[in-house]
């Protein structure tokens, strides 16, 4: 039945009904049904009630920190990620292979490990934090610490999006630009950068999306001071611990809607990127 309903053209391979059926069943059971409970929990509330919960001062402060710190982390990664990708593709230097492999570390390292390590390093008496402390800058237990943790966990995205595009660029175009009298900077700005832009933006958006939802690394370094260094996912946790299930569901719904919008944006960016490099 599934076969006639969905399949566009006949195939002699077996197992379409079985595999697609299992895929849809498992997807529904593990992802779709559980996620729908968030919205079911908020169904009993009026729009005014939802608005009142979603705009509590403590929550609004957390939105500002989560959005601001995630944007800052994604921006830092866009700048440094582009430089790292450039260096890894274009230049030769000792230890390059190891460095290239190490870029993925934030995806493989558990976030709690990242959290306690960065906190220890950037605390006022830590290896790196002491130099900031001498300059009067507090890193751990401040919004700056949140930015550091989010930069760490979203570091690979921009590098890994830009790297393959940079590798596939046709060098002849750059040679042509050089022959026509462009200097390296002009070639980069006018020829190379526009080619990299879709991948750079996709990497930026992926890093931003990942940073928005991050919990494990941030809770250690932020200090979790109400109105100052609380991120939005932490407030879901706090509401849950206070048995405020409605409150938790509203905050979760706000975050889910934001994630879905970002996912949509990322899909558009990836489509744009793939049409450029088809």
């Amino acid at each position, binding site marked *: 039945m599934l076969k006639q309903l969905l399949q566009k053209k006949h195939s002699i391979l077996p197992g379409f009904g079985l595999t697609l059926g299992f895929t849809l069943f498992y997807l529904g059971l593990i992802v779709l049904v559980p996620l729908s409970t968030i919205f079911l929990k908020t169904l009993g509330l009026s729009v005014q009630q939802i608005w009142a919960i979603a705009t509590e001062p403590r929550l609004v402060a957390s939105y500002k920190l989560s959005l601001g710190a995630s944007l800052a982390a994604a921006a830092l990664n866009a700048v440094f990620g582009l430089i790292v990708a450039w260096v890894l593709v274009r230049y030769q230097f000792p230890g390059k292979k190891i460095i290239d492999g190490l870029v993925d570390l934030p995806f493989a390292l558990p976030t709690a490990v990242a959290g306690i390590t960065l906190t220890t390093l950037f605390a006022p008496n830590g290896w790196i934090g002491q130099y900031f402390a001498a300059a009067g800058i507090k890193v751990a237990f401040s919004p700056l610490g949140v930015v550091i943790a989010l930069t760490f966990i979203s570091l690979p995205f921009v590098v890994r999006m830009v790297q393959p595009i940079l590798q596939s660029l046709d060098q002849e175009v750059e040679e042509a630009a050089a022959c026509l009298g462009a200097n390296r900077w002009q070639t980069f700005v006018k020829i190379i950068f526009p080619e990299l832009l879709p991948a750079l933006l996709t990497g930026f958006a992926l890093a931003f999306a990942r940073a928005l939802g*991050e919990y494990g690394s941030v809770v250690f370094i932020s200090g979790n001071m109400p109105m100052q260094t609380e991120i939005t996912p932490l407030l879901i946790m706090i509401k849950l611990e206070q048995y405020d299930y409605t409150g938790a569901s509203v905050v979760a719904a706000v975050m889910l809607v934001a994630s879905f919008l970002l996912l949509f944006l990322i899909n558009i960016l990836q489509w744009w990127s793939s049409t450029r490099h088809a």
Partner: protein
Amino acid sequence: MAGHIALRQGTAAPQSRTTTESPVMRWLLIGIALTFLGLMLVIPLIAVFAKALESGFALYLKAISEPDALAAIRLTLLTVAFAVPLNAAFGLAAAWAIAKFDFRGKNFLITLIDLPFAVSPVIAGLVFVFLFGKPGIFWPWLSEHGIKIIFAPPGIILATIFVTFPFIARELIPLMQAQGTTEEEAALTLGASGWKTFWYVTLPNIKWALIYGVILASARAVGEFGAVSVVSGHIRGSTNTLPLHVEILYNEYQFVAAFAVASLMTLMAIFTLLIKNFVEWKVNQQAEKAAIHHGQTEDNHEY
């Protein structure tokens, strides 16, 4: 969207003098890149082991062999043993349906499979509290029958399945799409059964990507913190996974013990990265073989 380490393909382009920068600029950029990565990746990596071994090797061994740590290791391994095979079965089924057949709504299905990457881990835990916990739909029935899911291992396993859901499917789908269906069609035409075709034709072709997906999913399952934190209840010796054990030790100012357990997970992360490089090389070989078979000569960079 890729919330994980995708395999890469491709070769470096040759350089000529007109298309590179002055040596000063080159070394400046290399310096900036290495300083950034050194500060963000290398120093933290060294710090984990330095802090773990700060008070000597004996204390390190004691920290990772005390009963609570061993209980955390056991629960973590149990979680991996459930979550990863289930997601591997799903990944194989999803990749077979998506890569080998043409059907309506395929792209939408791929987006839905990616959904857990876009959801905050805290929400991944919360949804199972809303299903099986005190505020949950199934709570009256579960409590009547004395079944505990939240604040117990089943909840931890469910939350872990959710966060590692896309990993294996994400590795298999693009590879199987690139490989096409001709080899399977040939096997079937020659009279092999469907299972035989899968076992002797498809599986050897996707072996390395499958292994890589399994290792990635396992690493994430071991290290998951947010989702598990919501459903665990933090009961020492019974519902603490390794990352939660690290959190408790750290919050109790037992820094050496916290970093000792953390160093175990860091070793796992390094192992994952090593395997990644090995498998990338293997998959590239397989893809090249597939490209020769299909008469394609250009590299496939959009992986």
